[in-house]
């Protein structure tokens, strides 16, 4: 009996693997159908590689840290310095590569905080309704009513400028969007019959909320998260622009633009390349987000 059961398990494992493969292929195919999302994926992969391999591919890795070379300050792009050097003689290309790390990390950290807080609150509010909903959603409204940059600025001003504080500050305001999104989704999904089925089977509310409803709000969350990756990088850049970001010499793109913006007419490369890097990242994530939206839509149908 048990061997038979076991063999059956193995059997169905095989079937499972096959089915999973099939689904993966299906998803990949519909994702690939969308050219732009492939482009986006490629762009983000480039970023990820740049971030991971920065110490190895950057021609002047030391320039990402403390290092000033006034002897080669403000040089235009050349073979030695593909993106030129900044006013303290640091290689912009190297700094842009290292900047990718920070930007990706920042996006990831902010979003993981914002999503875990926002999703939980939105789920609880939407599912439980009543007073819990009212309290959570009014709080969310409050946070929504403050522009993220302004709130983040206030928090950074309160806690001091550092990359970590900036990340926490942005997350501090960002969660509300997820709470709102999730709550809205939950309200509509909650009416679906499978939610009632779950209750009819005797499961408690946490199981219903987290096991049944949560998976169904993941796709809009994923889409939003990819799009937000870009926005978080932009907000971070905006804060750095005001001098509220990471501390020098940390090479964040926003700080690099902020630094270079005074030289657009003379040493244009100082601001332009980090600017392009931001656009590149945001664009990549947006392409993926758009593609994902299509894929996830397809999957449900």
């Amino acid at each position: 009996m048990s061997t038979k059961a076991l063999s059956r398990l193995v059997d169905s494992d095989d079937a499972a693997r096959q089915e999973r493969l099939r689904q993966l292929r299906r998803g990949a195919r519909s994702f690939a159908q969308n050219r732009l999302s492939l482009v986006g994926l490629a762009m983000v992969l480039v970023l990820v590689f740049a971030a991971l391999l920065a110490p190895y591919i950057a021609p002047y890795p030391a320039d990402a840290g403390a290092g000033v070379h006034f002897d080669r300050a403000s040089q235009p792009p050349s073979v030695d310095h593909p993106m030129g050097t900044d006013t303290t003689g640091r290689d912009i290309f190297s700094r842009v590569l290292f900047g990718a790390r920070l930007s990706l990390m920042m996006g990831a950290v902010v979003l993981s905080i914002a999503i875990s807080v926002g999703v939980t609150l939105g789920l609880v509010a939407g599912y439980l309704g009543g007073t819990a909903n009212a309290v959570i959603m009014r709080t969310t409204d409050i946070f929504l009513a403050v522009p993220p940059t302004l709130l983040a600025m206030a928090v950074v001003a309160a806690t001091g400028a550092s990359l970590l504080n900036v990340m926490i500050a942005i997350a501090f305001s960002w969660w509300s969007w997820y709470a709102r999104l999730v709550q809205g989704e939950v309200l509509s999904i909650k009416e679906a019959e499978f939610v009632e089925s779950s209750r009819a089977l005797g499961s408690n509310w946490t199981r219903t909320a987290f096991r049944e409803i949560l998976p169904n709000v993941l796709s809009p969350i994923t889409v939003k998260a990819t799009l937000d990756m870009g926005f978080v990088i932009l907000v971070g850049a905006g804060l750095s622009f005001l001098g509220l970001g990471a501390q020098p010499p940390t090479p964040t793109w926003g700080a690099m633009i902020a630094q270079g913006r005074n030289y657009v007419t003379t040493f244009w490369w100082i601001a332009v390349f980090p600017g392009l890097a931001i656009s590149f990242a945001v664009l990549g994530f947006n392409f993926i987000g758009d593609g994902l939206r299509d894929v996830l839509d397809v999957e449900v149908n």
Partner: protein
Amino acid sequence: MSYVDYLVRRALQAVPVVFGLSILIFLISRVVPGDPVRLALGPQATQEQVTRLRREMGLNQPLPEQYLDWLVGVLQGDWGMSLRTNNNVFSDIVGRLPATLELTLVTLFFAVLLAIPFGVVAGTNKDRWQDHLSRIVALFGVSMPRFWVAIVLQMIFVVTLGLLPLSGRLSDGVAPPPAVTHLYLVDSLLAGQFGTFVDAAKHLVLPAFALGLATLAQVMRLIRSDMIDETKKDYVLAAQAYGLPSNLIEYKYMLRNAFTSSLTVIGLALGFLLGNAFLVEIVFAWPGMARYGVQAILYQDFNAIVGVTIVIGIVFVTTNFAVDLLYGYLDPRVRLED
């Protein structure tokens, strides 16, 4: 629930939001390190001066009391003094709000006005070149930092081409129109000063573009996807089957629904624009509230921080309320359904 009830309820819901917001911002402003009194008095101030001002400002009381005092004051129009400008925050803000409002409203207006035809064309031509083009343009719009766009625009249109003015709301020597709404575009028209109107409009072009590009892109994308959803609606198919003109179907039958669902985002966008206006205001030396707000934060001028944020919050809450009103106007289901 009747439409009026619905609106009254929405209006009532806004009240705790504004209060909550004030508490939140008040708390943040008070935990900001840095002694506002010393900041106000300057480095040469004596200890007695500091203690006295502290007492005057009520800073030696417990936080809840400070908040209550402040709240009572706010309701009476006394928003406290700005430490940086030594002025009543209320009058500081009132003086600067019109400039910011003019900028954001013009931005929003044009962003939406342009987003509509682009969104419609993209949505009704899904997966054709029009769609791809607008999508890519939109994504570029979303992906560029606003301040960066602002600076680049200045380089191109002012420095290189010399087409548009560089900064401010009016050119040198152009007097502001007689103040009625404090919005120069409106006031100049009211006063019949067409030259001033053109000048003010010219000054708005670049900041509005830099500020609104992302919003334009966002709204356009939204309308596009809503239009795509609309193409699948039965009533659209039905309208086609009845032989109605295609542009009538697009703009009357589809857009109205698509636009309704974009409304919420447009409402949020105004708050967003207000919140981001400073990035552009700084670059274009726009004498607005957003710039004031940023400086308030940088100088830890906390009455001003609270004031600005409350104003933005109120604008945000009011626009959302206005959106609800509009929603009810555009979509009878809101008005008529239970």
